[in-house]
């Protein structure tokens, strides 16, 4: 069952194309990261899904429903933090949640449950102004969790947090994912997205450049890490191999990019020359590498297109 499915979603603000033809699908249980630089259209995309922004064109479905009534019902199953944690500074965490619960028509039990989920039950009696940024964000997550929504939409949840706060929020998001929630989060922090998300969509200049699982995105197309007892002989042999596109020597291994993406042929070639590999593995890129490559290629393509 798809929780969110957008089809050619587009938003234009006057002459500015904020989101351009974005089609993506989020399945139940996914932790879906929307990744992109500032101003790339992440928040606008999320805003259209939660209904604070009207799409210029395109459609979307929430929980497999797309009629206005379906969308209205579906939005009751969504919790979100689309803003900086913004509560009354002189009220306690619990009193602040009481206000949000009042709007949602929920009671004390739901407040305590939400506080327990974000591990704030023992600190909710303190005034909001005394909270650290991490605690403020956790309270915002508790507010989003009120009513036990199935889908959580988080916009830049770790933005402006210190490393400790980031770890707190990351662990909390993973905990919520463990509870079976579907989570969509927008961020420009690549390391965070790589650590938290199961799926990633890369957006730049409003365009969806690539999407898939984190493994799919980070998988190198034809780069391999190889190691043998004599690295010098190995390097010479690889450089002479006709299928080599590019090599790069590290202290303990050589990274080779192959033209035909056939590592078995390389292994055979080296064995025929008396070089036996102790390691031949697919070279994994970090999400940052993948993002830079995708974003750069996407930009060049769009420039060529225009």
């Amino acid at each position, binding site marked *: 069952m798809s929780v969110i499915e957008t089809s050619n979603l587009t938003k234009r*603000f006057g002459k500015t194309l904020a989101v351009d033809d974005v089609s993506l699908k989020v399945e139940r249980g996914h932790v879906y990261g929307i990744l992109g630089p500032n101003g790339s259209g992440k928040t*606008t995309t999320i*805003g259209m899904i*939660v*209904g*604070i*922004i*009207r799409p210029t064109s395109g459609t979307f479905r929430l929980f497999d429903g797309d009629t206005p009534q379906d969308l*209205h019902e579906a*939005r*009751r199953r969504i919790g*979100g933090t*689309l*803003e900086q944690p*913004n509560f*009354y*500074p*002189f*009220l306690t965490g619990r009193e602040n949640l*009481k*206000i*949000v619960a*009042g*709007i*949602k028509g929920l009671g004390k039990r739901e407040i305590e449950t939400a506080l327990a989920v974000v591990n704030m039950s023992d600190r909710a009696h303190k005034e909001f102004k005394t909270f650290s940024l991490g605690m403020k964000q956790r309270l915002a997550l508790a*507010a989003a969790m009120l009513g036990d929504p199935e889908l959580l939409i988080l916009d830049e949840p770790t933005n402006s947090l210190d490393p400790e706060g980031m770890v707190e929020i990351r662990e909390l998001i993973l905990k919520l994912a463990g509870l079976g929630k579907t989570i969509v989060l927008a961020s420009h922090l690549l390391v965070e997205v790589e650590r938290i998300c199961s799926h990633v969509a890369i957006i730049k200049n409003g365009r969806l450049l690539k999407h898939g699982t984190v493994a799919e995105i980070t998988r190198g197309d034809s780069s391999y890490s190889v190691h043998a007892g004599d690295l010098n002989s190995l390097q010479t042999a690889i450089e002479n191999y006709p299928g080599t596109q590019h090599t790069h020597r590290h202290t303990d291994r050589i990274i080779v990019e192959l033209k035909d993406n056939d590592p078995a042929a390389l292994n055979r070639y080296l064995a025929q020359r008396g070089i036996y590999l102790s390691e031949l593995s697919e070279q994994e890129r970090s999400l940052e590498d993948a993002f830079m490559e995708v974003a750069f290629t996407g930009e060049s393509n769009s420039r060529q297109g225009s």
Partner: protein
Amino acid sequence: MKAVLRLAVVCMSATPLAHGLAIAGLILVLLTLITQRIFPWWTLGVAAQPRLALGFQLVLALLSSIASLLLFCSATGMPALIHRLAMGHQVGVMPHGRLKLLTSAGLVVGGLSLLSATLAYLSFVDFPLELPPIFWSSLYLSLFAFTLSYMVIWLMGLYRTTMTTFVGVLLVILCLLVPMRLSLRGAMETQILLIPTLLMWGMIGGLIFAAPRFATIAKRPAFIADGAGSPGAGSKPIDLLLGTANPWRYALAQIPPLFLAGMLVVDTPGMLVLFVLLATLTGAAASLAAGRSRRLWLRSGASRAELYRMVESAHVRQGVWSLLVLILMFALVGGLAKFSPAKFGTGIVLLVVAMATGNWLGLFCTQGLGWREGGCAIIAMGLLMLGAYLCVAAPPHYLAAFSLDLAFLGLIAGFRYLAMKRWREIDWMRC
């Protein structure tokens, strides 16, 4: 000097709207000056047409006032601009940056005051009054009123809530009108105004030069910046998010300006106009509702139609509180001024109509004040003023006032329909 001039120009043309206002103001100034200089016989009058000359004189005086007001409005962004520059690091890098900043602000206010004084002087050319005193009196008045108004605008920008906006707008109106009223009544020597003006400029200079030390004071608390109401006992959560949690505050805030105005405005039309203005302003707080309802939408799970109903009822509740206080005050004034029952009744109906018009016009403004909304506001305000005039004219035109009230019902229904339509398609990114 170049930097000071450039800063002064930026202060008066920071946005396209400010730019437009400044140009419109300057065009009016030129028009007035040319008319005065090239066709002096229009205003000096000829023996055969003395009434015509008086008419032209009035028109020119009106044009001068509008020109001054437009130029004043064009620089309303100046306090925020100066504040931001004074708090920034760049001004520290610029040689004598803070002095240049202060000089440019002084240049804008001084220039505007000088222009207003010149226009006032020219408007009364050959009028049987001594010329130099009119010029100096206008200059002192303008310097004081403009300085005070820009300081109020600065404070309004610093602590932006419905309450501060409401009180701030009233204060600006009073800052501009009260000294003028006092001087015209001969109740005050305008030279005295130089002392508070100089004191204010001393304070402004102090603030600009010591701006970095005031960084923590100037930092707006998140609660104030957000503009939501403060939670009182028994406040509804919806009202807290919309800023309508404490309607009595707005209601009571109307009393001091009414008392103050009561001491200065003695005529009935003036008082009624003030009451109508207050009733509209209270309703106009609704224009902030669209931006504030975003959090309500995200948290309530309501449909757009339900959301509109919630917002509308919250603002009507707030409006009713304010209206009750206004009606009580109006009854008090009516009792003292010995209003006839007909005048009293017509006045109250006009206040209700003004509140309702302001309220639904405010709800209609989901994307700020554009040309369409501004046009509607000007028309509505013009008609309300006409209603006030019909009510207090001698003899009063009660039938016409009643007909106008009926017409207003149609206008209010129209604003409500448009508001509902806009809220059905509201895009919070544009609010």
